[in-house]
């Protein structure tokens, strides 16, 4: 995980907005999952399903990421039932996710221009 991203999550960096443009893999998948309302355990299952078990997020790690995303107004809680909170992306969160998607697409595009011919 990029060190600056972690610092943002723990409030160590005032350049939070700028640097959140780079998401880690678990963060990207959590936000992707939250494009639909979802609760904590649902997120864990969905991320595992989407990545076919490649990305697994621990409950403690997820709890910390969700609480910081909520503080940064990237996600919002929409309901709570039996201590189970359901979250969804905010507009800000959606923008961050879209920016990251564009960035990743650009990376793939740049890579394919250069590497495609070399790949057998």
């Amino acid at each position, binding site marked *: *995980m990029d060190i600056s991203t*972690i610092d943002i999550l723990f409030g160590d960096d005032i350049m939070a907005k700028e640097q959140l443009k780079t998401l880690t893999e678990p963060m990207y998948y959590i936000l992707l999952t939250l494009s639909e309302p979802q609760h904590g*355990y649902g997120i864990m299952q969905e991320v595992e399903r989407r990545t076919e078990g490649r990305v*697994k*997020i*621990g*409950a403690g*790690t997820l709890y910390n*990421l969700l609480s910081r995303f909520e503080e940064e107004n990237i996600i919002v809680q929409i309901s709570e039932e039996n201590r189970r909170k359901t979250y969804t992306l905010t507009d800000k969160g959606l923008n961050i996710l879209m920016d990251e998607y564009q960035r990743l697409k650009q990376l793939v595009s740049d890579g394919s221009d250069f590497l495609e011919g070399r790949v057998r």
Partner: protein
Amino acid sequence: MKNKTKRVFWGFFSLDYKAMGEYLEEMAEKGWMVEKVGQYVTKFRAIEPKKIKFYVDVFKEAGPLTPEKTESSEEYRKLCQESGWTFITSQNYLQFFYAAGDSQPVPIQTDEEIEQKIVEHTLLKNELRGVLIFALIAVYILVRNIPLRYTNLLSFTGVTSTFLFPVLCLLTAIPAAYSIIWMIRARRNIKNGISITKPTLKSARRRIMLFYGPTWIILLFYFLSFIIDSSFKPEIAVYVFLGPGVGLIFGSTIRHLVKNNKIAKDSIINYIVVGIIILIIFVQIAGRLVFDWSEDIYMVDTIPEGYPILTLKEITKESSQGIVSREFKPGMSPIVPKHHTYYEYENLGDSARSINIKYYEAINSYFADIIFKGITERLEKGMKWRGMTIFTKKVIIDDEMKNLWGVDNLALTDEEGEIIIQKGNTVLHLNDYSGNMDLNDRQTRELIIDRFFPGS
């Protein structure tokens, strides 16, 4: 077996939380399941020996002054439960979970960098804060005791404090040093993309032994010293236990109320401030009461053999004319095996006269010299009372008189009838308030030398 429980000493450093799981697994295989983890003691319940997986996690929203159950902790524990980890108990920031031995739940923390940051913000901060508070108290006590205070040499507790307290201070550097090393290593590993080093149970146990072994030995010395001193001065026992005792009860009560949601977290500081004020007032009042009782405790009529004294009758060469009261306080320590205070007071109706003797027999002349210098410095400094210095005396070192008396050190004060003498391992501080003793008189000199420094 159902209700069989046992309590085991729990000395793990909080930063060794990953080794705790290994220990709990070991215990479960021996048939003991953890039930409650305390600061120093852990409770286990007897079970059928089996393989159980344990996970000890650090929850950043918990802490020493946070209730056991909060909305956030319940939400976090539920999430862990859903991912396959059953919550057992918590101890400050640490949360204890288990899962069946043959299950494969996803670890609670899957991002080491986030984990390292949480640990730095919780355990490390807490550990260093504790060490800092102790360091401040330690520096204050050490500065107060340097140079060596002779009064500390007169009791077992004083001697233990003088020689073993600095060792105790050094020992507290162990957890502090370990915390800092842990932080540097963890940061370096994260930077290099390597996993945070997981402490082994063996290394965690070695740290427990290294820290608690000498600490318990020193505390045992303190306890024994305290018991011995109490036999000489019972009022000290009451007084010494009063502050820590009341503080401990108050602290535990506050903690219990906070942990069980009886006190709002925001108002804890108010309770602590009020508690400290009550504690100070209580100790002050109790201290006065205790020292008032001591007035009567040591009044004796017969002086034991081997404790030299001088009576008013011997000095004035007159028979008693009024009501005489005598006070004798013996004491001992490893450095000064024999010392005593003798005070005699005679009420003559319209006037009074008295004599005060302080006698010290140290193990050697080096410590006797420290006592002599300590007494003279104390007389010169006087006493501090409400911002003023009172009872200061001028100390006169009289070498001519010293040679005449044939002693190693001799000092007089501007108060007539007061003399401090050191010869070999013995020190005498004599103060005659009757005004009848002539220190230049040969007979007086011989009486004092024969009585207090025989064989010279």
